């Protein structure tokens, strides 16, 4: 998910959302900087997706 020009700093917020077994998980957030940051965060997102599939995660709440 992408949110453009929000907040006092008019930043672009990225929310990494995974859909696994018909459930939607909000996994992480970061401020868009450049393609390298996107790639780095994507790699971390891959780890989280794998953990969700393995049921190895903690839930902080439901939106």
């Amino acid at each position, binding site marked *: 998910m992408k949110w453009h020009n929000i907040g006092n700093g008019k930043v672009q917020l990225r929310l990494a959302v995974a859909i696994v077994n018909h459930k939607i998980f909000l996994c992480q957030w970061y401020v868009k900087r450049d393609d390298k940051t996107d790639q780095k965060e994507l*790699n*971390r997102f891959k780890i989280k997706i794998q953990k969700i599939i393995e049921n190895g995660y903690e*839930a902080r709440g439901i939106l």
Partner: protein
Amino acid sequence: MSTLAFNNSLKNNFNPDNVDQFIILGEIANSMLATGISREFVASVIILAFRYAGAYDLMVMWSTETESQLKDEIIADLQEEIDESSKLILPKHLEKKDYLHFDNLDEIAKNVMAFKKNLKAEIERWGGVSKLSKETGIPQASLSRLLNTPSLPRRSTLEKIAKAMHLKESQLLSHWLSI
């Protein structure tokens, strides 16, 4: 990132049947050691890379990156992933933690930063972040992130710091518990 780019990125996933990837992992591990990163961290990150494709990709990204700030960020990210994965037994069911309400986040961030300011001063009095990195095995980049951002410190990290500095855990954890 487009779907095509994401799918292409999956092609770099670690494959335990691919001998070349084992060799690459070893080479990256040696590079990390050569830069002064602790053996404990490197061993942990290798185990992580065997288990999680994203961790392998982060290691490859670190090895090809030339910008030092981004390299440090990747190291700090990998340390966070190691800390999160340090549970030996994964929960079998959904494990729920306390919900942090949006309205409380600013207050929590202020408390956390006040705690970290005190911790930073204590670390400087003791001998500094570089020395702490050597004693704990936690990469300096990871300690810098811990001390300079409002992220909630992990209990396991505070325990390592307390042990290295010969502090009673209660001296650090009492601040932690009040957050």
